């Protein structure tokens, strides 16, 4: 992964100096190794804090909704997809956001690395090209970055920003479009096995709603889970209620989810949240030929109606 930190700082400092924007949202070093954290930069001096590394995984588009000021935002491929959808849904005016697009080579799954190292806590790390060197009390381990990417990054079909105002770093080669082979494989299983897996995942959920809160496309003022009249689902961790929560949220995100993985990363219980989202993304692609966040001109299929929309659910048609 190229070290673009210096270039990002330079660009941001210039933007602030020339008063092009009032606020820049980017990443800075986190309080633990293998973490970066969102930062809000308002002056040139603070711009020195900005970094770019294999742990800039947050989807910063989350912070764009309802901003009174003009904002610049550091955005990876998936983040720009989220911004595109937010613009189309009129949550962010296009002229109020300056997209600093960064071609992304995937973010590293720190939980996987930590799990492999078990009780050996990582106290320091270094990143150089494709290598991550991890140091702790009495050990050093070097791994290849590529072998530890998040699942959503491994399959990512849009590493390059789909829309941007400024590009920092060279465009990277895109992978083949996502054919959702994992979904086809899962669907081929017998129903009992599928339900066993899904209910197993659902039973891990503690209904903390971190997935919802981390998702940039979940911006409803009143979420359906909080409505009291009518009350759509119960609030306990009952399997059925919890399953309906995940199912409904996935449906609300159909055609809008950009598969950035923010939900999975936020989940403390490591629930496989993206499975349902991916199924619906696969369906939307098949039925409507649409992929979220790739075009500012295409209206999301569930936000519009075309007379030639597929109607395979209609009998006798």
């Amino acid at each position, binding site marked *: 992964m190229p070290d673009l930190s210096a270039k990002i700082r330079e660009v941001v400092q210039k933007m602030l100096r020339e008063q092009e924007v009032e606020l820049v949202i980017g990443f800075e070093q986190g309080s633990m190794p293998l973490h970066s954290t969102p930062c*809000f930069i308002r002056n040139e001096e603070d711009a020195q804090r900005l970094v770019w590394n294999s742990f800039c995984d*947050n989807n910063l588009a989350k912070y764009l909704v309802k901003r009174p000021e003009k904002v610049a935002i550091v955005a990876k491929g998936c983040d720009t997809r989220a911004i595109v959808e937010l613009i189309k849904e009129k949550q962010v005016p296009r002229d109020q956001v300056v997209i600093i697009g960064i071609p992304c080579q995937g973010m590293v799954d720190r939980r996987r690395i930590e799990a492999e190292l078990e009780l050996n806590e990582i106290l320091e790390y270094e990143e150089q090209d494709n290598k991550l060197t991890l140091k702790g009390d009495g050990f050093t381990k070097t791994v290849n970055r590529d072998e530890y990417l998040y699942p959503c990054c491994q399959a990512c079909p849009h590493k390059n920003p789909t829309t941007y105002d400024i590009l920092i770093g060279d465009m990277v080669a895109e992978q083949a479009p996502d054919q959702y082979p994992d979904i086809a494989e899962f669907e081929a299983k017998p129903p009992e096995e599928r339900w066993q897996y899904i209910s197993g995942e659902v039973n891990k959920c*503690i209904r903390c709603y971190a997935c919802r809160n981390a998702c940039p496309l979940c911006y409803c003022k009143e979420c359906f889970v909080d409505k009291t009249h009518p009350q759509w689902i119960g609030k306990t961790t009952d399997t059925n209620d919890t399953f309906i929560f995940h199912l409904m949220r996935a449906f609300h995100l159909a055609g809008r989810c950009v598969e950035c993985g923010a939900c999975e990363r936020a989940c403390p219980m490591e629930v496989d949240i993206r499975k349902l989202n991916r199924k619906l993304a696969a369906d939307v692609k098949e039925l409507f030929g649409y992929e979220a966040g790739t075009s500012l001109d295409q209206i999301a299929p569930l936000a519009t109606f075309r007379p030639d929309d597929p109607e395979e659910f209609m009998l006798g048609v």
Partner: protein
Amino acid sequence: MKAKVIKKDDIAGFLDSLLKEYEVFAPVKRDRLVVFDRIHSGKEAFLNYTTSITSPKEILLPQSETLFTYSSTDSAADVEVPSGEERPRLIFGIHPCDVKSLIFLDRIFNEEEYKDAYYLGRRHAMVVVSMGCIKPRATCFCTSVGGGPFSTEGSDLLLIDIGDEYIVQVISDKGEKLLGKAHLEDAGEDRLSLMKRVTQDAEASMAPKLNIDGLKEKLDKMFDDPIWDLLAEKCISCGVCTYLCPTCYCFDIVDETRNSGGERLRLWDSCQFPLFTLQASGENPRPTTKERYRQRIMHKFSYLIDNCGQIGCVGCGRCVTECPVNLDIRQVLTAISNR
């Protein structure tokens, strides 16, 4: 203090004997995570861990708790409270920080004026066998909030890992009684010196204490300080910190229908959720993350000290490692102290 020794290989058997008399809760492995759960056989216990993802508070305060059931919504006279516990509970392998959270929860749910029958039903005869932390994490800060990796506060027995064996420190009579049938050897000089080395190394390895002397006094004057706008700017109000926190206990009460009747439930809730203080009129005294995050800090590090004499934090570090945006409470407390 009396100290015995038990081989790690004998732990499963010891737990099996305890299972005859107690409902035993211990850390168990679930995929990559460790959670506290009821065990039915000694070998389910997984003791080689640093922090469980969810805290043991769910043993005393489940995520959802039935306050009472009603067979029909017509008559408020016809309610039934679930029957109390039958066998006493034992928590095994809990770390001292989490034990301190139990002491804290006692101050809330077992007061002079308020005795929570549901909580006490689970807590009243509880035996606590804790485990010292020989490898504290860099994110642990128990020593900054009045705790320590080998603190015996609230425990009946404390286990300390010295290799193939555990030293068993006998803290209370309850703990002594527990060992009754196990016939453990006394820990001799050699083992005790080893224990001393292990504990000293562990204590020395902890991150430096946070300087939070005088924090409460500072906080009490800082309610309107503009620093809160900056401190909580990246917070996304997801509530993970409150759900995983061993001392967060705020709850919601809702009615849920089951057929013609239903139940009134007490559920985990979070002051970080916007709905927490939303009034029916639409007014919300804490409309943004700033007010809500400020409430979290003020409640834990000031108001609770006034109300029950204990800081609402045990330094377990769960909120630090699990916050999706790495909003680190240690950095927040330091920033406030330095103000």
